[in-house]
């Protein structure tokens, strides 16, 4: 057993480090400049470090999938605070286009998306179609060589910064629930589209409502077959995700908590010396270690093509519950400051709220429980759900 990636990867890690050392920070020292970022991403892509699953002719680096290499690249970029080539807006559209798009769609959209010239919003959720996405009602009619779109989307992340939307619409009103849906690409900088921000309980604005009022998109902006949009959404990048990077957030939140527990005084001593706080902190650490090392285990199994087992359905719910537990302990430590939104502990008050968004976004915790029940434990389907949900 070993927790590192092993000797065969040491040389690769050194290469990545050398490359980053030569290119970042940039020569003029300006870390914020978009030009510098763009130059770095282009150079790193040429070296095969970024956009690894995307073919060269669409601006990617076309590398064989290798979870270990991908993870090392992520680690080294994070350490150096170098740009990671994250696709602005919603990068999900790229794998979808690679799998289902026409040659023309791929040529027109993928490279500009990687460069950040086109920024996407995801138009899936609607006010009455959340977890039950197939109930969506936004409709598109083909009139001549154009689709005419009417309806509303909601929870659309960063729509106010986006140029385009990939969108699920109902094109066959008479077809059964899942069968009448198509996948369209829409330029949202047009008079028929209105974007209205939603204010969250934390006062932040990340999501929007998007209204379509006779909005238009050309007929050839249909991805995949008409009426087969449900299947089109189910493509993901050739998988190089290990879950290790998604744990970083929980780990850093926990480290912050320990730091704060040492700083805050209660009854004349640091809070961390209070046995109740201390024991709960250790209990949280035990959960965090479980998550951490099960993730390493899952990554190793993945790299060696072995079955991971039910754990692969669990990280999201586990992290959600852990974040809630961390927030509650933070609350117990800050006590009176818990109601001071203008004070030094605002970050923890916000986290107390933000941790709730984890139990909603990307499939509510109860939806996660159904996924674990069915895909993790092999229980029969929840009979209250329609087919294909």
């Amino acid at each position, binding site marked *: 057993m070993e927790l590192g990636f092993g000797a065969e990867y040491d040389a690769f890690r050194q290469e990545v480090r050398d490359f980053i050392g030569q290119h970042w920070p940039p020569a003029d020292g300006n870390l914020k400049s978009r030009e510098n970022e763009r130059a770095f991403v282009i150079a790193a892509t040429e070296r095969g470090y970024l956009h690894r699953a995307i073919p060269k002719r669409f601006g990617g680096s076309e590398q064989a999938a290798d979870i270990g290499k991908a993870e090392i690249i992520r680690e080294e970029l994070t350490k150096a605070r170098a740009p990671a080539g994250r696709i602005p807006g919603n990068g999900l559209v790229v794998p979808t286009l690679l799998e289902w798009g026409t040659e023309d769609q791929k040529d027109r959209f993928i490279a500009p998306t990687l460069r950040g010239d086109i920024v996407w919003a995801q138009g899936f959720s609607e006010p009455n179609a959340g977890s039950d996405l197939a109930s969506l009602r936004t409709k598109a009619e083909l009139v001549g060589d154009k689709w005419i779109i009417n309806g509303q989307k909601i929870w659309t992340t960063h729509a106010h910064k986006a140029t385009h939307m990939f969108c699920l619409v109902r094109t066959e009103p008479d077809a059964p629930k899942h069968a009448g849906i198509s996948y369209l690409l829409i330029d949202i900088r047009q008079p028929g589209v209105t974007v209205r921000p939603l204010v969250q309980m934390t006062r932040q604005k990340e999501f929007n409502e998007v209204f379509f009022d006779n909005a238009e998109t050309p007929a050839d902006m249909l991805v995949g077959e008409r009426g087969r949009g449900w299947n089109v959404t189910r493509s993901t990048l050739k998988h190089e995700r290990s879950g290790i990077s998604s744990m970083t957030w929980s780990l850093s939140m926990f480290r912050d908590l320990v730091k704060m527990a040492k700083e805050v005084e209660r009854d004349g001593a640091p809070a961390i010396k209070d046995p109740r706080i201390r024991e709960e902190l250790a209990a949280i650490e035990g959960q965090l270690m479980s998550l951490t090392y099960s993730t390493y*285990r899952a990554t190793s199994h993945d790299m060696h093509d072995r079955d991971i087992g039910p754990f692969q359905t669990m990280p999201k719910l586990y992290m959600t519950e852990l974040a809630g537990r961390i927030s509650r302990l933070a609350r117990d430590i800050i006590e009176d400051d818990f109601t001071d939104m203008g004070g030094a502990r605002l970050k923890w008050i916000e986290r107390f709220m933000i941790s709730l968004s984890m139990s909603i976004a990307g499939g509510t915790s109860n939806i996660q429980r159904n996924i674990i029940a069915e895909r993790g434990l092999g229980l029969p389907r929840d009979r209250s759900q329609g087919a294909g949900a």
Partner: protein
Amino acid sequence: MNFLLSDDQLALLTSIEDLLRDRCDSLRVHKIFDVEGEAQYDSELWAALADMGLPAIFVPEEQGGLGLGMVDLAIVAELLGAYAAPVPWLGHALAIVAIALGGSDAQKAKWLPRLAAGEILATVAFGEGKGAWLPGEWQLSAAGGLIGTKLLVPNAAEADLIVVGVAEGLALVEKGAAYSTQRIDSGDRTRPVDTVVFDGAEIELLTDGLAVRDRLIDAAAVLIAADAFGGAERCVTMSVDYARVREQYGQPVAGFQGLRYQLVEMALATEPARGLYWYAAHAWDALPEKAAHAAAQAKAHLTDTYLQVTRDTVEAHGGIGFTWEHDTHIYMKRAMLDWAWLGSPGRHRLRAADLAGW
């Protein structure tokens, strides 16, 4: 990254599991569990496991063993936990760890080959009551003959050799020395435990006992955690299987959301904890700086989880789960012993906090 079991380890597990499936099924465990009078162990199963080389796992090759490490011991502990195997493995394995780590060449040569072959049985004595389990808390002294009491000693009555935690380190006490044993009704009749009263017993100190006793305690914590994982995982499987076949209102109860979510919570508590106990075993073998903290965390988290999962298991089975003839209470009683033996989760959490430097 290689955080997985090797082919050799998987092969070891397969061969042991084949034997357990055959010789340690539920009926057999119940038969041992239900013996009138004091709890006994399954001597036939123990002999069969010894023939397979189970006790030899950690014994160095020089003394006729397999020379394997803590990860190998821990995955075996997991398997024995899953089958609720009524064999005196835990104490025996830990006595071997103690002698292999802390014994002189002569002590190793004298004891390890026979322990590896399963010719004689050994155990370990740590607890002194009121939550005192750890080396710093040991009051018993080896000076001038051993006097005092150790609690919850696995299979002390049957043991030929006891490794006793003392203020001076670790002491070997052979059968026939001045001590008496009293079998305790601990609930867990698959792993009998005794109170041992030493009355001036003759001892021999392990040469490096003082230096290795903390590491021995970490090993005990890892093996208990592994047992807890094996048992908890088995309980989740048992509950899921039952929910699929038990019907009410004309359908399997697995279709009812309330119960489904309970099963999910059990699995969510159990499955990720595997990584923690693996890490603790791996740290014991390879990461000396991290080993004590990881062992304390594993002991605390896994035994807490196991006990809760066994409670949920009884609930998931309804009335049948509360009967003597079912397996649920056997696992619950093992979980109770795992929770208490070597110190409660709360104590180990506070120890983990100290070790983390908080």
